[in-house]
């Protein structure tokens, strides 16, 4: 980064660029997947949740586990732009915007996918008309909306100086795009007073978002932990969810920063050192998470109480065992092992293991939600002496809607990447002590 000398050079490097063929294909693919999801959702609206494989026993499926996944991944916004920022970790500055973009895109889809799971989405306003504050769902609605609001602010407010830069520096862009930057930059001129307010509000938000972030995932864990069911009836769930969320969020940042670096040739900003540090961070987070995993399963497995026993057996040695151990081995153990080595924390290997962590995390949410529902307290009803099978395998509708939601969040990230600088230009400039003044048009400057 030491070689950057002027704001012009910085802007030139980091300003949004037109997509090439690969970018366009990628965007088209995402749009198609999302459209396909809409078609499936249309049929679900028409025919009800009977298009899913959910049943009276397995009454929650991948819509809910996917919801938990979205909430989890969105937590990274608070990790990078609040926790690391407040602890003065300067190396993470180029990552704050990427983290906030991930947070906003995913928390939005957390809200959407939970509507998809509702039997009566047309009655969503009942939550506000008849909301009962005793219900953890109402807590979740409140805290998710708060987190979305703060995350949008944490994305938007630090964007102001950058939007002004784009407004002033980007010449060969369509008029609407220029207009967009002009409107969104809210007449930012870059005075000292403005920067003072900016720093103050971002610091304030960074402090506020930490408890809210812990809140979204703790409350989400309580949707399960507040029930009496084996496997969910756990006091460990809050911190377990939070720890797991930081893991998948950090992995998502790594994955995205690798793509940004390769695609935009940003080796100067997203250098190997940042990858190395993110790798170390992910190792630490994974180890904390492993601690909670052991804590979650060891004691019930030791006691094998009725009500937990059949579930534990199902996870450890039964039908869910391949997925359970697969998640531990490919989603935690191998990635951690790779990342322990300096070579493993180079961009490409780190990118690969980060994606393994993300996929593992998705299936881990599946393992949290679904197997418990296979083990009710009362035995399955027997028909002519044969117990009726409790089954669940997501239908095509469920898969296509779920995949569409994942593609949708990637599409939002893609669009934001296309039109916004995904590395905060002014923060880099500030860090590197590059003079920002020349960007301010002379007329406006004289006004101040």
């Amino acid at each position, binding site marked *: 980064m030491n070689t950057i000398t002027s704001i012009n050079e910085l802007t030139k490097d980091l300003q949004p660029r037109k997509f090439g063929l690969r970018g366009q294909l990628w965007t088209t693919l995402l749009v198609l997947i999302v459209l396909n999801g809409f078609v499936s959702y249309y049929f679900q609206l028409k*025919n*009800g949740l009977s298009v899913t494989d959910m049943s009276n026993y397995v*009454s929650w499926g991948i819509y809910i586990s996917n919801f938990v996944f979205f909430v989890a991944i969105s937590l990274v916004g608070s990790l990078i732009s609040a926790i690391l920022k407040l602890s003065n970790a300067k190396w993470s500055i180029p990552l704050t915007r990427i983290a906030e973009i991930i947070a906003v895109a995913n928390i939005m889809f957390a809200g959407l996918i939970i509507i998809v799971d509702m039997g009566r989405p047309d009655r969503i306003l009942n939550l506000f008309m008849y*909301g*009962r504050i005793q219900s953890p769902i109402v807590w979740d*609605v409140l805290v998710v909306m708060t987190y979305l609001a703060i995350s949008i602010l944490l994305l938007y407010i630090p964007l102001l100086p950058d939007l002004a830069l784009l407004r002033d520096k980007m010449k060969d862009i369509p008029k609407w795009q220029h207009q967009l930057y002009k409107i969104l930059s809210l007449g930012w001129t870059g005075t000292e007073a403005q920067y003072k307010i900016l720093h103050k509000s971002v610091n304030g938000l960074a402090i506020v978002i930490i408890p809210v972030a812990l809140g979204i995932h703790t409350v989400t864990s309580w949707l399960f932990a*507040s029930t009496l069911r084996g496997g969910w009836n756990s006091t460990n769930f809050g911190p377990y969810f939070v720890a797991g969320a930081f893991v998948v969020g950090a992995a998502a940042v790594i994955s995205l920063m690798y793509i940004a670096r390769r695609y935009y040739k940003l080796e100067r900003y997203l250098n190997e050192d940042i990858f190395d540090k993110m790798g170390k961070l992910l190792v630490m987070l994974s180890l904390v998470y492993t601690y909670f995993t052991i804590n979650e399963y060891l004691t019930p497995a030791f006691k094998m109480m009725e009500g937990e026993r059949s579930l534990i057996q199902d996870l450890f040695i039964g039908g869910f065992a391949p997925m359970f151990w697969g998640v531990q081995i490919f989603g935690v153990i191998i990635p951690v092992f790779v990342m322990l080595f300096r070579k493993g924390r180079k961009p490409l290997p780190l990118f690969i293991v980060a994606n393994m962590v993300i996929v593992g995390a998705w299936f881990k949410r599946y393992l949290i939600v679904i197997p418990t529902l296979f083990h009710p307290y009362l035995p399955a009803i027997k028909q002519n002496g044969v117990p009726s099978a409790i089954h669940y395998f997501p239908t095509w509708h469920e898969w296509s809607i779920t995949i569409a939601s994942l593609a949708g969040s990637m599409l939002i990230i893609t669009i934001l990447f296309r039109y916004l600088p995904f590395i905060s230009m002014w923060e880099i400039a500030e860090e590197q002590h590059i003079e920002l003044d020349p960007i301010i048009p002379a007329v406006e400057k004289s006004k101040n």
Partner: protein
Amino acid sequence: MESDKFSRKNFLKLGAIATGGIAALNSIPFVLNAQDGPVCGETVTLLSSDGKLVHVDKKSLKLASMLRAEETNALKIRARKGIEGRKWVAVIDLARCKHAMACQKSCNKNHYIPGDRQWLNVYEMQDSKETAPYWMPKTCFHCDRPPCVAVCPVDATFKREDGIVLIDNERCIGCRFCMAACPYSTRVFNWGEPEYHKELDGVVYDPEQGLPRKKGTVEKCDFCPDMLREGKLPHCAEACPNGVYFFGDLNEDTVTNGSETFRFSQLIKDRAGYRYMEEIGTEPNVYYLPPVNRLVPFDETDKHLDETDNMHHH
């Protein structure tokens, strides 16, 4: 006939509603003849603002939908209040159950329950390998500390003064949190469009019957409050050939299965009554009498009904 029963019921309800709904009706302009178009022949009896009973053709009635809403609202208010002065309780005598399944059959028939769900189940229980197996009929327990009610985000499922836990299917948002919260797998869901039943045409929704069914909402055993209101036993108790089900009022300390009546407290004391899974603290209102000195020995192969009867009411 079912249809007769329903239209008669409707008429009675309307009569009852008329008093409650009259204030609202007064404010609605009564322009019954202003509407053209064919008549449907089905008439509704209404109490007009000047106190006369009028017969009005349903289709010509501009107010029909408003009246239905009015009626449903009154039924919902009644359903939330419960039956005054009562505290319903059930006692299930496991010693008498021989898996005749007449309870489930009657329940399914009277509640128009489709084949993919049951409000009432009879479980084959065996607590451990060496202990004796027995049949355990299970209704909703109508818990005094209902986990389902605690988690409902919109107050669609509620606990009434008389102890019954009910659902307002017109408020339920279908989040199914109550299904996850119920430790007894009691709650079932309308996954798709409800089955069509001719008898339910034009029936005004009443939470005390849960009919007509609503797509995308939760339902369950409701202790048949409509029967209790009429001083009758719930359908399962009426149908059981062995007198397994006792229903009654805790305030009166009396339970009956139709032919025998007991002091509730004495029965529980004498027969060592208990509640299922007491340790989870939900305080059920259904008690069990242990399967000792059984009417007939347990026989798993002794099928009184074939599989289709077990699944369907058709």
